[in-house]
């Protein structure tokens, strides 16, 4: 028995290689949530009055709400008074001050270890990074280079100070604080995240990415990202996430807002690998996120690509509101759940403009005792003449103790619309695995081959370097899930 436990632990630990913690002087405010805490966060960040008002309105509204329970999830009770809402690992010095700031070498080392070098000369080719740990952006690379083209890429805290007019115009314009329980919470206490503005006619020459890391114990992370892509502009943006292994659940309640204007295009990719909890289902990040893009301009385009392998619970629906005539949206998703992980994820495509088009490709992979649900809404408003949607939702099961569920909703108010939905469920069979074994391929590698083949359509949508990472991640996440 003892031996078996050791083995189980080894598998679980091998599986999650980002579970280390960084020993760095971190300023953590006392646990608890109240108006005073909201004021304190705002004060620590040196925010203008209008933003404090925004936070307070959101907080007061949040207090009137009950946590939602409609997800196909077994949610642990979250005690919102037992979380610290602000943790600053740069307390030893000044925090993100662009390219010139001094960064604690421990923080540099942490991001190096995560494969995210913060020195520009070491960077992945063509990628600029905003590195966020706990509540604070640590560093944003290639800022000067991007500035030459008029591109703004910085932490949202800095954007509030340096580009208040832009933040004020767009913050909450896609996801209002009244949107839902977690959106209201985030709007009240959000800490850091990235701000991107691509001016008219500019094609962003680099991949922009934000790397989110939770480090401090007993804290929540409330990321807030805002991307505005002006007329005829283009940007490809990627976010990555990891966290240490902790026995308790950690809350990550983020908001991502994207505004896409006329003829503009945004590609948003996520490789989410928050700590999923151990093999017994203890600990792990609760990933409760509201992501939405507004395709405001004519012929605007937005695509969400997500590879979700981490978190104890993933509950999010990166969505698109297609207002602009002829706008096009895509959602490509791979969600992997193993052990006791749970996911209820999918998308919402809201067609408002004429000739709008959306595509949904969702691939769920469940293993162990996990539960994996796709939930998606396709809504076609009266005004959306000739709207088109194609949805394809596939589930792949490994083993017999996991579950896959599909909840497609359609709400069509225009006769000229065409909405198609396809769904399949398949299982990796013993025969397939044995066939691979007989050819000399061991079971874990066979699972990785099959899963990557299954997810190929989505993985191929990621920028190249990240596609390779995502492939490895899929294999690693399912280690020990069969046999």
């Amino acid at each position, binding site marked *: 028995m003892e031996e078996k436990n050791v083995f189980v632990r080894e598998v679980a630990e091998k599986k999650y290689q980002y579970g280390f913690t960084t020993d760095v002087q971190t300023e953590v405010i006392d646990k608890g949530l109240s108006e005073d805490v909201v004021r304190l966060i705002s004060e620590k960040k040196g925010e203008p009055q209008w933003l404090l008002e925004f936070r307070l309105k959101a907080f007061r509204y949040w207090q009137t709400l009950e946590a939602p329970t409609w997800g196909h999830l077994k949610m642990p009770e979250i005690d919102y008074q037992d979380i610290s809402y602000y943790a600053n690992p740069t307390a030893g010095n000044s925090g993100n001050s662009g390219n010139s700031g001094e960064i604690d070498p421990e923080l540099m080392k942490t991001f190096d270890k995560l494969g995210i070098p913060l020195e520009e000369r070491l960077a992945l080719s063509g990628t600029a990074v905003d590195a966020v740990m706990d509540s604070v952006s640590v560093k944003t690379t290639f800022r000067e280079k991007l500035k030459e083209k008029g591109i703004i890429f910085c932490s949202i805290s800095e954007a509030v100070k340096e580009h208040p007019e832009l933040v004020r115009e767009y913050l909450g314009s896609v996801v209002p604080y009244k949107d839902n329980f977690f959106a209201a919470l985030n709007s009240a206490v959000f800490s850091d995240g990235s701000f991107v503005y691509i001016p008219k006619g500019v094609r962003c020459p680099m991949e922009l990415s934000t790397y989110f890391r939770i480090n401090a114990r007993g804290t929540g992370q409330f990321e807030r990202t805002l991307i505005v892509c002006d007329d005829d502009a283009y940007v490809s943006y990627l976010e990555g996430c990891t966290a240490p292994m902790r026995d308790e659940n950690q809350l990550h309640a983020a908001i991502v807002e994207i505004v896409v204007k006329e003829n503009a295009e945004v590609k948003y990719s996520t490789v989410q690998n928050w700590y999923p909890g151990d093999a017994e289902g203890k600990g792990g990040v609760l990933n409760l996120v509201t992501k939405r893009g507004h395709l405001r301009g004519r012929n605007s385009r937005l695509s969400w690509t997500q590879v979700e392998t981490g978190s104890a619970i993933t509950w999010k629906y990166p969505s698109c509101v297609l207002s602009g005539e002829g706008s096009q949206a895509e959602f490509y998703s791979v969600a992997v759940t193993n052990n006791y992980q749970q996911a209820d994820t999918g998308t919402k495509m809201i067609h408002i403009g004429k000739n709008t088009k959306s595509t949904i490709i969702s691939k769920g992979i469940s293993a162990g005792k996990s539960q994996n649900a796709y939930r998606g809404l396709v809504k076609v408003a009266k005004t959306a003449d000739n709207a088109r949607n194609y949805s394809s939702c596939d589930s792949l099961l490994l083993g017999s103790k996991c579950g896959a569920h599909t909840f497609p909703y359609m709400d069509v108010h225009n006769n000229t619309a065409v909405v198609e939905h396809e769904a399949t469920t398949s299982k990796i069979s013993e025969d397939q695995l044995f066939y691979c074994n007989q050819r*000399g391929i061991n079971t874990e590698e066979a699972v990785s081959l*099959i899963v990557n083949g299954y997810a190929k359509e989505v993985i191929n949508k990621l920028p190249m370097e990240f596609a390779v990472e995502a492939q490895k991640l899929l294999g690693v996440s399912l280690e020990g899930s069969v046999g």
Partner: protein
Amino acid sequence: MLQINNLHATINGKEILKGINLTVKDGEVHAIMGLNGAGKSTLSNVIVGHPAYEVTEGEIIFNGKDLLKMSPEERAHEGIFLSFQQPVEIPGVSMVNFMRAALNAKRQYKGEEPLSAGDFLKLMREKRKIVELDSRLTSRSVNEGFSGGEKKRNEIFQMAMLEPTFSILDETDSGLDVDALRIVAEGFNKLRTPQTSALVITHYQRLLDYLKPDIIHVLIGGMIVKTAGPELALEIENRGFDWIKEEVGL
């Protein structure tokens, strides 16, 4: 090369093999014939280590090593290959990726470096010719949408890629038309060397005409009841199995 001593095996608690003894020497091709349900496929599955079968007694020694102690993939690395009776489809996994994983796993086991992408593709092109397998097929997913004949050719193609020393052909002739049978059999013959051996499971003389086995075994009721030279296969073709049953008193 391969020595099987008093092998007993069960599936779902039911005994199928009841004391098999069989010795295959380097360079030999043996054929196993017998009625349906005699245990022919069970024997091949047990040799390659299919998890559904349990060996209750006996041993299999392969080149001096205890085969039953090895995982299926170790057996493959040691040089054992099964041409499946019904090759499975693996959607989404391209033949190229599949073969590359298999070949590099074997190379790793032998302490060799993985093949470069260029060398690997060159090898694929060479080996494909042996069974006249179209490049269209090798760029598809494993067996997906292959016809029955293409699947069998694909099995021999994989054999050519992996260069096993001991191959088992489990009813490789079933479902093949005359031309496909010839291509598969000729492909197999091209791969024969004095150092490689094979076990051919079949109902028909047709395949054996091409493969020219050295020794024929008749498997009835989970036991090898008769062993003789190639003339035995011809006699079975003419007279069936009943006379053998009578001869051995079954």
